[in-house]
């Protein structure tokens, strides 16, 4: 049994067989064999070469017969690659001297050649890279005895294990087949995390190097709550997780019964539970789970896996679908929150040394007004279909807020001049996720209609910690007293001016933290749709007085550890039936 810790990015528990992907296209596990088994691996390879050669020979003969010698010659050249003396001696050296498995050696050597060919300036050579890849695939298929799985077409249900996944790969996932996702690289804001949450597939990323310890077919448990992955679990561990899964299922039935009841404390204080969504199709599952609206509609998915900027119509169709499906419930659309740290925004963002402090989010949008205008036009058009609100992310200075509002006004004038039907009275809010915005909120507040606290970034910027960095991730605590004070100040300033404050970070997903926020006066929480039912259960089990008492005590504690322990303890006392969930 091997237990590893990563970053939990999509909740849930998955138990299944691993399918390890480690190379572009058809990936293969990086596996070492025991010393002394090199002769066996070398024999396996020799047999695979013979088998692959026979296949190529058959292709050569049939192609030559049907299409002539010229095309048949392609296979003849591939046969030549298969027995190339340089290639063979490199393979032998990796297998004999470095104890690589035959698959790993093949993958390494072919990748090296394919990359060298691709990097060359000759188009002729870079096209040959595909021929090399073909030969590699044949060899690997001969070695493993089965067609190489691609992420698009998984042969069976599996837990996908990989170094990293490209946006294209994650976008082509089949949610029926992918039980869980686990990657060595990646962070909480990456595309893998986003897609996994959107598809409600349990996922753990940022585990660090471990692919050499796992083979396809190994049993794996992914704990998307605690960010843990367990390879080849022992009996007791497997039972523990199976039991937890059963328990979750039984709780889920109970939660279904309160779906249509409001999220009110037992003494009648209404807490709005909104949903964070990434993809248009999620709107329906928000409704099914009893969400009061969409509190954070992330629009980055439109850029996922596309090289081209989305058109105004593509933006509009996506927004319109969500607004319609939410049936007059409010929908808060956050404008682009992209940066060098996220997805394939290569056309806009140069690689940066310090992407979290760089050109991202509203800064990127304001720097690219043409792109920003397209999105704002689509939002304003979609606003005619229901209760749509606009929210600008990562506002740090008043100038940024004013520039963004200016652009919004000018776009709306353009649309009016074009005779387009638009909704003029769209509410405008800002995300509070930079400490500077909290400190200056009294100056911002008169120029906005609402604020939404993004606790993920606020925590990161307040504590100066990158949570995707393993060495410091433990410092990242949304319940750190410093973060709580900033939340408290935000709520106080906004409520003096009768503006609403919501919290839309991952903090809201945790029932204990959510009760604390309610006790601090927050009346709107926005969270993952899947977490809504359990949170509603928690809220309906307490009085607002109990929440306020919790907040009063918590705000007097001095460290994140004390706060966390206190809150968990409180939750166990107030709502014991859901504690096992966390």
């Amino acid at each position, binding site marked *: 049994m091997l237990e590893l810790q990563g970053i939990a990015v999509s909740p849930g528990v998955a138990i299944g067989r691993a399918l390890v992907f480690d190379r572009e296209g058809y990936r293969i596990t990086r596996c070492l064999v025991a010393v002394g088994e090199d002769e066996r691996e070398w024999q396996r390879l020799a047999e695979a070469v013979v088998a692959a050669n026979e296949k190529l020979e058959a292709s050569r003969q049939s192609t030559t017969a049907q299409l002539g010698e*010229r095309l048949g*010659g*392609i296979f*003849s*050249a591939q046969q*030549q*690659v298969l027995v*190339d*003396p*340089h*290639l063979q001696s490199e393979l032998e050296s990796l297998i004999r001297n470095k104890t690589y498995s035959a698959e790993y050696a093949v993958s390494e050597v072919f990748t090296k*050649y394919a990359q*060298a*060919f691709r990097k*060359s*300036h*000759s188009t*002729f*050579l870079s096209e*040959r890279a595909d*021929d*090399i890849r073909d030969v590699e695939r044949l060899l690997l298929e001969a070695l493993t005895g089965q067609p190489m799985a691609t992420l698009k077409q998984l042969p069976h249900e599996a837990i996908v294990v990989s170094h990293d996944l490209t946006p294209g790969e994650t976008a082509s996932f089949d949610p029926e087949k992918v039980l869980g996702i686990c990657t060595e690289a990646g962070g909480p804001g990456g595309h893998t995390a986003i897609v996994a949450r959107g598809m409600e597939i349990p996922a753990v990323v940022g585990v660090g190097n471990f692919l050499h310890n796992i083979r396809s077919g190994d049993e794996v448990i992914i704990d998307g709550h605690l960010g843990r992955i367990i390879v080849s679990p022992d009996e007791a561990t497997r039972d523990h997780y199976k039991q937890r899964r059963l328990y979750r299922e039984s709780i889920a039935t109970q939660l279904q019964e309160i779906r249509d009841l409001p999220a009110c404390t037992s003494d009648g204080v209404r807490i709005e539970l909104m949903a964070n969504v990434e993809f248009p199709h999620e709107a329906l599952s928000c409704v099914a789970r009893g969400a009061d609206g969409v509190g954070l509609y992330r629009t980055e998915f439109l850029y996922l896996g596309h090289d081209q900027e989305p058109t105004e119509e593509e933006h509009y169709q996506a927004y319109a679908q969500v607004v319609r499906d939410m049936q007059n419930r409010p929908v808060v659309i956050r404008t682009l929150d992209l940066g060098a740290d996220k997805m394939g925004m290569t056309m806009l963002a140069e690689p940066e040394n310090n992407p979290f402090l760089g050109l991202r989010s509203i800064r990127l949008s304001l720097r690219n007004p043409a792109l920003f205008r397209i999105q704002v036009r689509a939002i304003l058009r979609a606003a005619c279909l229901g209760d749509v609100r606009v929210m600008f992310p990562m506002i740090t200075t008043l100038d940024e807020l004013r520039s963004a509002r200016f652009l919004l006004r000018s776009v709306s004038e353009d649309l009016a001049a074009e005779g387009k039907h638009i909704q003029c009275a769209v509410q405008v809010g800002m995300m509070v996720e930079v400490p500077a915005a909290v400190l200056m909120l009294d100056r911002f507040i008169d120029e906005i209609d609402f604020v939404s606290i993004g606790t993920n970034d606020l925590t990161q910027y307040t504590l100066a910690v990158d949570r995707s960095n393993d060495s410091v991730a433990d410092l990242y605590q949304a319940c750190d007293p410093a973060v709580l004070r900033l939340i408290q100040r935000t709520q106080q300033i906004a409520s003096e001016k009768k503006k609403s404050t919501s919290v839309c970070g991952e903090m809201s997903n945790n029932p204990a933290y959510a009760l604390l926020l309610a006790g601090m006066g927050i009346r709107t929480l926005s969270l993952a749709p899947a977490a809504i039912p359990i949170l509603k259960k928690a809220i309906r089990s307490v009085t607002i007085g109990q929440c306020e008492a919790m907040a009063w005590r918590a705000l007097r504690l001095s460290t994140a550890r004390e706060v966390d322990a206190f809150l968990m303890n409180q939750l166990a006392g107030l709502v014991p039936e859901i504690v096992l969930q966390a």
Partner: protein
Amino acid sequence: MRPADKLVRAATGFQCQIELERAGQIADCRSILSLLTLGATQGCELVLRAQGPDADEAIRVIRLMFDSHFDELQPDSST
């Protein structure tokens, strides 16, 4: 790729060591990957070298192959 294939097949038939050089880069004529890595295209200058008992014969045969454009009906643009 086809000419490279033919070249390797021819070279393997000799005992001598045969090399092709392009702009300082040397390829082993028994290795198709090595030849491809030269990235040689039609019209570029190559130096053919052979060392061993049947070197003269090897040079003669391979020269002939180059002169006949490797029997391609349409001269291939590669190697």
